[in-house]
């Protein structure tokens, strides 16, 4: 997963907060920095794989630090922030959209944490606010001393358009209340997802990293929301070459859980306790295979061995589009059965999912003449074959009948007589030395095309029987 932290640098963040009973005072920005540090410290311990980027905004928005796992670098950079002008939210959303897209394309879920002043209650509800263009959530932490007027105007902390929600620290603002809210965010947003990976009686407790999110899909007749269940059941195996490249929603590392919680001391012991997860990974890697598993009642995923580089390979869960037709070329997933034996090659070809009975237009010889060139190309084709008769007699007549049938369907009657004229012309132009059968066939075809029954879709025009021997070709 990835996180974007957006820090407000408007002048209002310059405000000083005096801490009761002490002489200390902090600016809102200092509190914000403190909060970010708390978050980063949490990540460093619990979620080291998290990528974090920081943007700062006021009337414009700038990327302070692009996605990195070097949290110390971020800490260093946020100590040197300078104030700008007034707060303006739309550019932030835009900048984050581009930042996320250029870095991750659209396949990564992103957590956005925005630290701003109290204006967010109203500002983020304005109509010019658009939701993010990537899968993700926004958490807004408003730092304001007085319980703002706006806050009471809106009874919900939820932002419109599914943008996210507001999470304010307890008042009065102190470094510790800010720290508390950031701890809360960290604990809620960066929980590893625990699940059981199961294959028959074999099972393994696992963590999924990043945690999977529920997915809402709108089909023509229903909107379905799929949540991953906490039991991933393998239903069978596939050769990787058969899976090819289906559309994937998200990918997650599958890491076996430690047997007990006392991490440090048991590290050694736990790495020596056999885990089904590790066995599965080894076998998938050696055999170059993929395991198909059920994520919830109508959602499936693939388990593969995956390596970032040559050395470190890992078990990865790929979530497919919800539904049973996520890999169209395998057919309905519910119709897949376990075959007890390895199939021979011919059997394998037979068991390809039912070839679609009606082929796609590009896979059959359909004639489309909307553009002039389309028809002209078809006519040129039969003329070329006409000149090469008698060798090309079968293909000439086949092509001629194809055109004829299309012309009948489109009610394009003039075309046939016009082709007859062309054939006559072709016949007259035949160079000397052409096989005499060629002229005979051309004349025959032209005559047939002019007959009234040429428009009968049930008939085909066949070659003329001549004294020349070539018709054994037919």
């Amino acid at each position, binding site marked *: 997963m990835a996180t974007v932290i957006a820090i407000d640098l408007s002048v209002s963040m310059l405000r000083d907060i005096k801490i009761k009973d002490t002489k200390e005072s902090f600016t809102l920005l200092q509190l914000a920095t403190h909060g970010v540090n708390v978050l980063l410290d949490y990540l460093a311990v619990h979620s080291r794989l998290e990528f974090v980027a920081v943007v700062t905004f006021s009337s414009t928005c700038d990327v302070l630090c692009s996605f990195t796992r070097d949290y110390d670098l971020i800490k260093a950079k946020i100590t040197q922030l300078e104030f700008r002008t007034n707060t303006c939210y739309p550019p932030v959303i835009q900048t984050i959209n581009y930042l996320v897209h250029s870095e991750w394309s659209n396949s990564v879920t992103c957590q956005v944490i925005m630290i701003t002043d109290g204006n967010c209650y109203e500002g983020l509800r304005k109509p010019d606010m658009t939701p993010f263009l990537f899968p993700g959530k926004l958490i807004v932490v408003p730092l304001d001393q007085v319980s703002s007027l706006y806050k009471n105007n809106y009874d919900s902390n939820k932002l419109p358009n599914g943008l996210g929600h507001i999470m304010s620290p307890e008042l009065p603002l102190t470094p510790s209340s800010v720290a508390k809210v950031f701890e809360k965010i960290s604990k809620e947003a960066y929980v590893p997802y625990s699940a059981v990976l199961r294959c028959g009686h074999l099972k393994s407790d696992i963590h999924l990293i990043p945690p999977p999110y529920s997915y809402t899909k709108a089909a023509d007749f229903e909107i379905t929301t799929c949540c991953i269940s906490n039991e991933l059941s393998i239903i069978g195996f596939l050769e990787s070459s058969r899976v090819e490249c289906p559309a994937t929603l998200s990918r997650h590392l599958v890491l076996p859980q430690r047997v007990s919680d006392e991490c440090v001391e048991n590290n050694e012991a736990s790495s020596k306790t056999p885990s089904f997860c590790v066995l599965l990974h080894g076998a998938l890697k050696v055999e170059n295979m993929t395991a198909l598993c059920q994520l919830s009642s109508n959602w499936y995923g693939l388990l593969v061995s995956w390596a970032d580089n040559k050395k470190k390979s890992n078990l990865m869960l790929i979530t497919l589009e919800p539904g049973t037709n996520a890999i169209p070329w395998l057919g309905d997933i519910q119709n897949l*059965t376990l075959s007890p034996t390895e199939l021979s090659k011919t059997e394998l070809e037979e068991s390809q999912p039912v070839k679609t009975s009606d082929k796609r237009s590009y896979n059959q010889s359909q004639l489309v003449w909307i553009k002039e060139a389309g028809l002209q190309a078809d006519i040129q084709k039969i003329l070329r074959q006409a000149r090469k008769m008698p060798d090309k007699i079968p293909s000439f007549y086949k092509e001629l009948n194809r055109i004829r049938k299309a012309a009948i369907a*489109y009610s394009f009657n003039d075309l046939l007589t016009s082709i007859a004229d062309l054939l006559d012309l072709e016949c007259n132009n035949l160079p000397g030395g052409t096989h005499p059968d060629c002229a005979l066939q051309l004349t025959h075809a032209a005559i047939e095309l002019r007959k009234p029954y040429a428009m009968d879709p049930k008939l085909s025009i066949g070659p003329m029987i001549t004294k020349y021997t070539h018709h054994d070709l037919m």
Partner: protein
Amino acid sequence: MSLTDQLFPVNHKTTFVVDHTPYFGLASNAHIKMDFTKRPPNTVPPSPIFKSMWTCSIEAVLEYCRIVWDLFPEGKLIRVISSDSQSRILNSWASSQQNVNHMLHHLSLIGPPAKLLPNPNRDYSVVYGFRTAAETMTECTTAQMDQDSKKNNIEVQNKCRTIIITSARDNPSIDNLMSMFHNELIKVNKYISQPSFKTVHQCHLVIVNTYPDSITCEVTDRPIHTISPILDLEVHSVPASKIGIKISNLLLKHYNLASTTVTGIPMKEEQNASSSANYDVEIYHAATAHTTILNANVADAKAVVAKKEGADYETIKLKWCTPRANNNLPDIHSCTTLHRITPVDINSRPSACLITFLLNGRSVLLEMIKQGGGKSMSHVLKSYNGEIYIHSVSSGRTVLEDPPAISEGPGGKVSQYRVADFGNFMKLNLLQPSKRKTTEDKNCIDDAKEKLKKQTAYWPLITSSTMIFNLKQYTEPMLSLMVKDNITDQELMNCKQCIYALMTAESKNEHLIIPNLINPRKMMKKDDQYKTMWTELETFLKSNLYTENHCKVLQCLFECLGKPDEEKIIEKTLTRFKKSLANRPSVIRATTDSPMSPPLTQQAGIKHIAQNNNSDIDPNSVMYLQIIQENDSRKVNNQPSRPQFAGRLKSVQLRSGNLFAKLYQHIDDDTDAKSVK
């Protein structure tokens, strides 16, 4: 657009009403030059031919159908109605009639519009088609019926689109047509009674007004606007020669499609095969394939978007990237969307070449040229089972960069995993599309899970925690036979022979040589070895008691070891089987068995008894009772004992799985077919 707005799209059902009146038999200005052959100079070239307005219209309709059905083989249905002196329906909502060949066939039967002859008895009009169109829209499609039967909370909204292709004199005539259509719609909505018909909740009416190119037309275009709660109207007016382009522009909006132009495809020139030139091919697909590109940097997006020549939509230009080898494909997980494609110009030579290239199993990578001149691979074209898809590929970094290796985690330092055995297990459990069409609600997934469960009932993860799986020279084929749903009598014999072989080895005081054991110093004493092995074997057999024959194997082990069945496990299991057989409701039988299944008693596999050494069996055991019973029944039937000795003897001698399996292949097949579950 919110998710609920996407529910019940109007494009689920589209009806075309095409004017087939004599007026549409008039020639349009769409002409084709027929000047192909060299002719003597100063002769008149062959005269060009003209398409009729009907030809232009119906071509455009068929092209609309072709593209929709190519991209959406299911769920987007189109019907075509022609109207002259009466209306004629070309196809139904049934999927068997939703294909272009069906349409072509029926169009051939309709023929060209009648010649315009003054005939007071015959009244030609497009209006006859309106009633029929309204009626077809009330007919439920299979998908709508299915959804109705699901009894979801939301009522199925019957939304649809009607496209009328006709010729009107002026705007008031268009209004007239619209109100006639509206009235028909209201009328049919009143008379809905049967459940297979549904009130039309909303209809998007598109009137395409067309006219011969030679005249000017007074009908003006109107953008979509609401007429009534059930009707929206949109009007387009085009000369007949342009109708093809107009309809395909509408198509893109109706189905939310986008256009991609694959540029720079190197192709040999038609006339001169030695030189090659670059060509472009335009394809259509769902618009979401472009989301990634369009959401990224605005400048980059602008660099690839171009206006399509001669049309009012945009196309995204992506560069063909000559593939080096097919294994250059991106990783399985970097493909984020997948959509069917279809070429726009299906007959053009460049399209045909690209299509053939893809259908032959090769894939094409598409590059996006960025504003600064940089490139990034954004899409892949590839065919599966004769269908071509566009994959959008995520070009970004992966969030899983530099992950910890699995070997660093829990269980990572264990080196004795039975990887090869698990590999075999996976190969024995490959998923295949089932050939038979299963009954509607049958779910193979639960069967698959059940099968995996049986095979893993006892499955040690590492070699050092098992003996029997390391002693395959003795224990096979028993280990693989026992996990089957059913074992035949012959297989039962084989299992027993494995046990006997181990017995023999023990009596000869042979060392159980265990391959792959890492530490020879830790080699157990012979006695301990056998003890551990027998205990493990017992556990294994106890975990796999699925039928009576399975129980008999365990029984055999107990007999060999001279050990009583302390927990009465066999007895309990057998009683359980009997109970479940007796209690088994006929309904379940009907769903799991084929009508050809033999009666249950035979399936349980007690037709023959393998061995008659009853003497060892406790006369009080269920086993004993059964054997007696079976012997009796055999006597009654006076069945000659089957010719099993040859095979049995052989298997004793060879004790090798291969030879044996080959010999009895037909028996295996036979019993598998009869198997209960």
